[in-house]
């Protein structure tokens, strides 16, 4: 999800910035000292994964990891994604700086919404089922982010049909990939360090 400066209209940029700022503020309020190393590692992972391209149809997509980040970080996903996206923009030139708020919102809102819901539901589930739910949710997070991005581009004059077609073709692959990755990551963590996932579910 990397849109350059100058493509989106000012109201959309402003709306994204407001949503992102609200999310980041809430994330900074909620984060505990013990969460900081985890947040740092996931921010770094998110930053690097945008370099891993998966060929899909005529173009390629890159891993997003927002489902996994939402599950592991909850509200803290907002500051993590903002920092990751900021460095992607500064160091790789992926996406413009003015679009930072919009990107944080489109990637972060599905992540946090699903992450918080998952923590609530997973606590009462057997681990394999919880991991399966995590995988499904991660796929859904990718779909929602793509859908938000497509909608925003449509408001900025992109063709809905072309966008939707490309969205279906390329993101189906990414959704499946992220679902698998998140499933295995969560299954592994539930077995090895469940507190990392469910510790702060209260």
């Amino acid at each position, binding site marked *: *999800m*990397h*849109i*350059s400066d*100058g*493509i989106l209209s000012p109201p959309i940029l402003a709306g994204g910035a407001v949503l992102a700022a609200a999310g980041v503020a809430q994330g900074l309020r909620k984060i505990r*000292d013990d969460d*900081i*190393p985890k*947040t*740092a*590692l996931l*921010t*770094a992972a998110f*930053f*690097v994964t945008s*370099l891993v*391209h998966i060929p899909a149809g*005529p*173009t*390629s*997509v890159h891993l997003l990891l927002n489902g996994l980040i939402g599950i592991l970080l909850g509200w803290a996903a907002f500051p993590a994604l903002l*920092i*990751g996206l900021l*460095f*992607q923009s500064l*160091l*790789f*030139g*992926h996406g413009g700086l003015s679009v930072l708020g919009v990107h944080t919102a489109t990637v972060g809102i599905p992540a946090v919404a699903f992450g918080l819901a998952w923590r609530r539901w997973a606590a009462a589930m057997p681990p394999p089922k919880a991991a399966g739910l995590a995988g499904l949710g991660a796929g859904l997070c990718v779909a929602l982010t*793509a859908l938000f*991005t*497509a909608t925003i*581009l449509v408001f900025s*004059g*992109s*063709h809905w049909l*072309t*966008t939707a*077609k*490309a*969205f279906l073709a*390329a*993101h189906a692959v990414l959704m499946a990939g992220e679902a698998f990755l998140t499933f295995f990551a969560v299954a592994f963590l539930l077995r090895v360090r469940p507190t990392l996932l469910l510790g702060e579910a209260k």
Partner: protein
Amino acid sequence: MAGFLHNPRLTAGSLLVWLTATAALAHGVHADLLEGGTGVRARFDTGEPMAFADVKVFAPDAPNEAWLESTTDPEGRFVFVPPRPGVWRIAVDDGMGHALFRDIAVGADGHAHMDDDHHHHHHLHGLSAAIGGVGFILGLFGMWALFRQRPKKN
């Protein structure tokens, strides 16, 4: 359909359309070889072409309405022939959240000029940028953790 036939104005109109279309069909068609042209090659950072991406061209005097809509070829290229001088804007959008636009200044002599892509020249490349970024991020969080914990210890 019967109503349509009984409406004299519509019938006359469609007759006219039919006649014009037939007249157009009667025209021969031919093509001249066109060389040069102005355009862009759109790539992702990896060097991979933005193949079959949506392209919009905006004319110098009408920046809000697309003057031409097209797509890039399999190599991510798009070329057109600007009919008049001025700053032409080309927007390329892969429909998946990757979009860019570039301004091409076309002179009165038809010569085109595009500013260098600042976004790419000033950036570190691949591995060094990735390692540097990870370092920055971990360092940033480390400092933050340090500042947060300091008051508690005292």
